[in-house]
């Protein structure tokens, strides 16, 4: 077969786009996937009133914490599928062997993960907030905090997901590794909403969250790449 001439090679961003496209396609194909992280989030949030009882006053107090913990758990649950399938079926080897820098492909995978698992949570959170009787302004702060926080969770999670590859039974191990790292995001995220509710102003918390976000953008793809290479050695 003619293997010269007609073949175009892809630039770095072409590969990035291909990675994002592929992961989104996979998520759509496993039809349920997009919706299930979301439903998980919704169900977990609904479990708390069932466990704690229906007093609205009490529920309003714990709402920011519950919503953020649920977002964190939902993100974490979906981490497994970030690299595990690629690792098991040999795609990851192919990625490492690709001429495109691995960091870029990792960034693509993180982006796709956020689009599939993070963004829907941000969009549904206000409705759940209503169930806990949060005020409209608190809802806005909630959405902003999640908008900054969920990509952060995806980025930190990627490191954990990469580190636990091939470590069998890694499904739970990944939570062990990432949950502690998630704690700052949880404190500032839930803190922002609480601060707003109690009239203290959410600005400080939100800017700290933004700072964490910026830090992670630089740090996470690098660490993830390193972890992936180690997993394959």
């Amino acid at each position, binding site marked *: *077969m003619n293997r010269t001439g007609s*073949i*175009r090679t*892809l630039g770095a961003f072409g*590969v990035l786009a*291909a990675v994002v496209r592929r992961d989104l396609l996979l998520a759509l194909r496993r039809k349920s996937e997009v919706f299930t992280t979301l439903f998980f989030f919704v169900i977990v949030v609904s479990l708390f009133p069932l466990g704690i009882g229906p007093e609205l006053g009490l529920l309003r107090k714990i709402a920011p914490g519950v919503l953020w913990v649920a977002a964190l758990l939902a993100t974490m649950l979906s981490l497994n599928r970030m690299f595990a399938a690629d690792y*098991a*079926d*040999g795609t990851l080897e192919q990625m490492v*062997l690709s001429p495109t820098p691995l960091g870029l492909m990792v960034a693509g995978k993180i982006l796709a993960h956020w689009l599939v698992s993070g963004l829907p949570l941000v969009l549904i959170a206000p409705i759940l907030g209503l169930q806990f009787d949060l005020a409209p302004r608190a809802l806005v702060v909630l959405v902003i905090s999640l908008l900054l926080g969920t990509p952060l969770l995806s980025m930190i999670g990627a490191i954990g997901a990469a580190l636990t590859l091939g470590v069998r039974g890694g499904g739970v191990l990944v939570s062990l590794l990432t949950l502690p790292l998630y704690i700052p995001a949880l404190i500032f995220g839930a803190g922002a909403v609480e601060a707003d509710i109690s009239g203290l102003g959410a600005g400080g918390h939100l800017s700290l969250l933004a700072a964490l976000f910026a830090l992670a953008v630089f740090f996470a793809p690098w660490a993830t790449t390193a972890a992936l290479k180690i997993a394959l050695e």
Partner: protein
Amino acid sequence: MLTAIDLACIRGDRRLFAGLGFTLGPGERLHVTGENGSGKTSLLRMLCGLSPPEEGEVRWTGVAIASLGDEYRQAVLYLGHHNALKEELTALENLLTTSALAGVALGDAEGCEALRRVGLAGREDLPVRFLSQGQKRRVALARLLWSPAPLWVLDEPYVALDAAAVGWLAEIIGAHIAGGGMAVLTSHQEVAIEGGVAQTLRLAA
């Protein structure tokens, strides 16, 4: 040109091989043979740069591959025991994305053409999960048809293929080598490949 110098491989407490060396130039192929567990897969992964050698060095055009990075990765196509297929994606989607990962932009038409050539016409849009073992292997092999990589590293490419498929695969490899390519392969089956110069490397268990 691929050169292996004084390679050694240790797995657990076993020294699989040591002092292994060879040179592979354009138009040549290297058959790595040996019993089960003699270290063929381990060697091939070393040649690709997937695992670092215990001792020795692999060089590409005279330079150690560790320092070449992307440039070397562009030159290698590796097919391992695993097929690197996503069971939920269709055969065509799988082919296009593995090619994209290797930096090759295939269109739908080229993808379909390649699948047709590996005997999967009419199954382009079937999720790979439904394919038979041999058909899965064919999807993985379809990558060879459009690959611009000069060096092919193929670990047991014939596994699960029926006799006809083994035949055309041997032809494809032969054509690649005849066109100035290189190939390192392992196989427990005896398959004759036409064209090019053949070297054989036997790993003792």
